[in-house]
């Protein structure tokens, strides 16, 4: 909190500025808005639902609610990896077709909560060769590291997310 108050307000405020939860996926560090995060839990037993896309791991029991769980690695076309003790499920509140719902997202590890200023954030560079990246809000550099800002609602929307893995790795 202190840091927020002390930092001078930038002239141009970016709608993307604010608090983010960062997590690791492969060698990349991603960030999603803290406001959309409901809770973080360790991996628990997931019930497989047949005839769903591969990145949909199944459903879990979140204190009596049945919520879907997706594997972000598979969603982004990254190679699958066995779950480790550091693997986490981030439960996010997403909005789809006007309805709010909870979804679990499997990530390699959860890092920290950071406050990103307008000055830290840049637009997504053009990767060329027609890679559509509507779910990328932008890139943030902090302490020499790049964090990829995700719009979690768009990541979850039904259409396929192609080629992000290739584009980033």
């Amino acid at each position, binding site marked *: 909190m202190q840091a927020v108050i002390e930092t001078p307000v930038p002239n141009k405020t970016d709608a993307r500025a604010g608090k983010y939860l960062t997590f690791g996926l492969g060698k990349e560090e991603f960030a999603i808005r803290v406001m959309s995060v409901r809770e973080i839990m360790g991996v628990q037993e997931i019930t*497989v*639902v*047949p005839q*769903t896309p591969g990145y949909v791991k199944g459903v879990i029991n979140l204190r*009596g609610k*049945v919520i879907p769980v997706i594997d972000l690695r598979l969603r982004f076309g990254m190679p699958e990896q066995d779950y480790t003790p550091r693997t986490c499920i981030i439960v996010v509140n997403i909005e789809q077709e006007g309805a709010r719902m909870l979804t679990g997202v499997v990530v390699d590890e959860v890092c920290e909560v950071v406050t990103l200023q307008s000055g830290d954030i840049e637009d997504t560079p053009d990767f060329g060769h027609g890679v559509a990246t509507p779910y990328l809000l932008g890139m943030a550099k902090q302490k020499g590291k790049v964090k990829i800002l995700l719009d979690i609602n768009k990541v*979850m929307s039904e259409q396929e997310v192609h080629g992000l893995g290739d584009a980033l790795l």
Partner: protein
Amino acid sequence: MADPLELNELASDPELLRDFIVESREHLSMIELHLLALDQDPSDTAALNAVFRGFHTIKGLAGFLELDAIQTLTHDIESVLDLARNNSISITPAHIDVILASKDYVHACLRQLEQAASGAPCDLPPNTELLASIHAVAEGPQAKPAEVPAAMSALASTQPAEPEPAQPAVEASSIKVDTHKLDFLVDMVGEMVIAQSLVKHDPDLAGLAKPRLARNLAQLARISGEVQRTAMAMRMLPIRSLFHKMSRLVRDLSRKTGKQVELELIGEETELDRGIVEELADPVMHMVRNSLDHGVETPEERAAAGKNPVARLTLKAGHQAGCVVLHVIDDGRGLDAQKILRKAREKGMVDASATPAENEIYNLIFAPGFSTAERVTSVSGRGVGMDVVLRQIQKLRGKIEIQSTPGHGAAFVLKLPLTLAIIDGLLARVGNETYIVPLFAVREMLRPLPEMISTVENREEMVLVRGSLLPVVRLHRRFGIAPRSEQLSDGLLIVSEAQGKRFCLAVDELVGKQEVVIKSLSGPMRQVRGIAGAAILGDGRVGLILDPEGLFGRKAA
């Protein structure tokens, strides 16, 4: 009276206004009930008094809040009713019409007021016309003063007949609860039962083998089961409210179409989940409309056919084998199978050469856009309706059947589950997964002997069960799971039914039977064929509930 509504100090208190609205609505629904009774039997003084009391209370409340439009109207209604109470007039359908219209007017006012309570500007609709018609019906019989003296003597005998003493006791024994709170309670109780079962099956606790612990756990299980049953019972509503909506509809429709219909209600006290009662209103309304418009003949036609000119429509509810069965029966002309078949052939829904069974012909009326009505009336005939009815009933996990005898009437039979929240299920294991098979879909279970199994073209498998060959659906193949054994005779077959055809579901083994609380799936798995939903099992894991229709339908497609 059409002045914009100005709320006085009292009425601008949202709390008071809301109380007024809630209370008045209750009185209005009671008024309607008794009015319809009065329509059947104009000499029913108890009903007359009840109607009077209802309007009187509303008048008092409206006066308190200075809602003049409602007050003057209810006052005039009261005067009419008073004349009837004094036997100076006798209640005719014309009176009932006016009083029903007034009731609707007050109802409309309440809706306006409700908006006012939430800050929106509002004005009450004008009631001058209504007032005039009230005066008209009131004055007519007043011109006959000869009846008055007789009324004087009758007055004394009608007064003590008021059933006042029974009323307060009934009201005191129930309270109103916000439905959200109730739903939340039911949810939480469901969680509690699961948590209880987790404790009970905890391997560490089970290893202790202490008799006192076991006793206490059993006690806990018993109590939480009882709490769950009570919570569920709180969601149950008698079907009465739905039936009474229909009595109003039947009355209005029969007056509009010039048909004479007597409505008979049986089993009004049958209880159903609140959600089901609400969802049933539309389909039942459609069916009643259909019966009145297509089924019931005009009095002349009926007389010519040697039937009682007054038709009879029966709504009957009751329990049957864990289901609620609702009948909508009319004694009209019945369904014309030939006409339906002809229409279906015209529309190309049935091959010209095919000769479907009577039952299949009747089911054609559930197809979208199907109508045999020669002309479209304001009541029905557009061909939208029965398909909506079917869809709605299926959504409620119900079934619908048609029985019809030409010339003697038709019956629509609805079979509905008691509640939408819970189903009885069989837990079946396939590989490492546990699935829940709804008990209502299970006909029988068996372990097949190798000689019962035969194959078609070495691909499709069939099992001979008591003389009939049933196709086999291997759950592990459908869902892509590694089974415990590929041999059918090592596993179990669950004989199930979908689209009226029986088939066998092959699973590895049966774990047990459990009552589960249905949770719907969201997001990417909302529309997985063969999966109806999910439930939390005794060990806290999520189990998927199978949908036999979906499992079998896919195979057929």
